[in-house]
């Protein structure tokens, strides 16, 4: 192992791209604020920020979920690229803080075109919102958001710390057993908190409350599936990129195959939840419920509605079904980019059809903000990845990962 490259050196072109994308993001932010910040309480401006920050935060957080889920399941195979998922999950820190600031601006800045429930006069005269008052109020929202993002950061930091703590100390068999057990305990704590946030309360608060009268019991899982597919796509992209740069020499087609399987499987899972949510509401045909799909299924967002289904279901179903395509670096890269974009669109219609039911206000501004977030993720991931050894070389399961065979 002495011949392997131990540390990642951030290439100049990578840095240029990073700063370029962040620059585009900041520029879009300024132009967007000038163009849209004033009119209609800046709803257009803040909705774009909400969509992008929440989407990219959930995507990078999915990397930590993947890390902890495989730790808990005693999964050895991702160890050769574990440091990549760790580096991606480190982006939760800057993105979490940004998302928190944006959410607080929305709730306390009086943006009731996005979150109608922050308007006390409306709530007082609205029977449904009055009934939800115990849950949908600024105090609960703030406390839960602080806890959510704070614990994601702290527990993620702990998991990364645990992984790095054995880099210089080879473990004996007894120590290895203890190390694995400690890892599963912390991973379990993270997973429980993940279940209480991403898989339940957080999508209700951050996204579903845009349509405050409406609710769906599928919504959180749907959001989770969406962000997890995109998260796996992001991991695959970074793995392919680092492999291409000559790092991660133990990653081979077997690992790529499994990453592809995850994207494929969770795309189908996403479709299952997407369809469940849609079909039950469509079948029951109760106007309180169908209101959510009014603008999406029949109105201005119809194109997006079907495009969403084509990109996120039909494309992975047809392209990723065969074994060969999951083992091919080019198709995996292509599908990863497509799915990241597809689920970004999914979040777009989740957020924007609320405040803008009559037209789709998508333009370059949205893509500019997205570019900023992509740049930020690239910057943080590259920075963290270059700081620590690429291979978790003392982990007890490493051999299992190197000889992995599907």
């Amino acid at each position: 192992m002495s011949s392997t490259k131990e540390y990642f050196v951030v290439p100049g072109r990578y840095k240029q791209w990073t700063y370029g994308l962040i620059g585009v993001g900041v520029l879009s932010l300024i132009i967007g604020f000038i163009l849209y910040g004033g009119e209609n309480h800046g709803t257009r401006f803040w909705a774009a920020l909400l969509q992008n920050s929440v989407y990219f935060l959930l995507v990078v957080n999915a990397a930590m979920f993947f890390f902890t889920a495989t730790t808990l399941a005693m999964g050895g195979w991702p160890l050769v690229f574990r440091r990549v998922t760790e580096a991606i999950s480190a982006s939760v820190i800057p993105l979490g803080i940004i998302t928190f600031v944006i959410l607080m601006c929305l709730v306390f800045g009086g943006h009731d075109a996005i979150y109608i429930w922050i308007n006390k006069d409306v709530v007082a005269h609205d029977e449904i919102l009055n009934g939800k008052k115990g849950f949908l109020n600024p105090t609960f929202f703030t406390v839960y958001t602080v806890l959510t993002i704070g614990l994601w950061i702290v527990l993620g930091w702990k998991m990364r710390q645990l992984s790095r703590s054995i880099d210089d100390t080879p473990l004996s068999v007894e120590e290895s057993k203890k190390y694995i057990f400690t890892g599963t305990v912390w991973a379990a704590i993270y997973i429980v908190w993940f279940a209480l946030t991403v898989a339940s309360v957080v999508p209700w608060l951050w996204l579903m409350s845009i349509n405050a009268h409406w609710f769906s019991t599928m919504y959180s899982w749907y959001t989770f599936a969406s962000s997890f597919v995109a998260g796996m796509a992001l991991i695959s992209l970074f793995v392919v990129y680092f492999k291409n740069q000559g790092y991660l020499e133990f990653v081979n087609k077997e690992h790529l195959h499994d990453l592809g399987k995850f994207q494929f499987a969770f795309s189908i899972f996403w479709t299952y939840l997407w369809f469940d949510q849609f079909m039950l509401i469509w079948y029951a045909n109760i106007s309180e419920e169908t209101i959510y799909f009014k603008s999406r299924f029949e109105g201005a967002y119809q194109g997006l509605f079907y495009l969403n289904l084509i990109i996120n279901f039909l494309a992975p179903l047809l392209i990723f079904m065969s074994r060969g395509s999951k083992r091919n670096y080019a198709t995996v890269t292509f599908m990863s980019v497509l799915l990241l974009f597809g689920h970004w669109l999914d979040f777009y219609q989740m957020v924007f059809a609320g405040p803008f039911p009559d037209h789709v206000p998508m333009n370059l501004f949205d893509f500019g903000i997205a570019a900023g977030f992509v740049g930020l993720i690239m910057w943080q991931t590259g920075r963290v990845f270059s700081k620590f050894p690429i291979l978790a070389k003392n982990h007890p399961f490493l051999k299992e990962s190197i000889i992995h065979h599907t």
Partner: protein
Amino acid sequence: MSVKKFVVGIFTDEQVLFPAVKRVRSAGYKIHDVYTPMPIHGLDDALGLRQTSLHTAGFIYGITGTTTALSCIGWIFNSDWPQNFGGKSHFDLPAWIPITFELTVLFSAVGMVLTFCYLCQIAPFVRKHHFNLRATDDQFTMVIECTEKSNEAEIAAFLGSVGAVGINTQIAETGWWLGRYDTELPPLGQKELV
């Protein structure tokens, strides 16, 4: 179906089995099959077996199921027995999807099981020769097929040199037959220890 002569080598360690498979193949002997108690990752590659086309068969069964479901429901609700369900149109695709999905899964699952049984030639009451009964317990069994030109003693010696712990020669039926193991033909082969 034919009766052939085989040299059987028994291994107790997969770490020995892997290099043995490679050396036997590169020496030019024809490996009939390798029987193992559990699936071994990478053994199919080492044996040079081609990828199974079972999944392609599964895909074909799947789309057959999809087509069956859609055409069947379409025919029933549009021409055979049109009914009014809550004022929805007769051609209401979302309501059909669950059944379409179920039939797709059913067709591909049952079809693949049957295809698998056919490819492996296993079925109730169908018998095949066992080269080594402990291949289902704790031993790895490599079976080398003999041709007219083969020298059994040479093969046996070679197997010994690559680490086989038990070697014997068997004359066995290669195909399957119906019936029982103990009394009926085809011959179970004379086992001679080398």
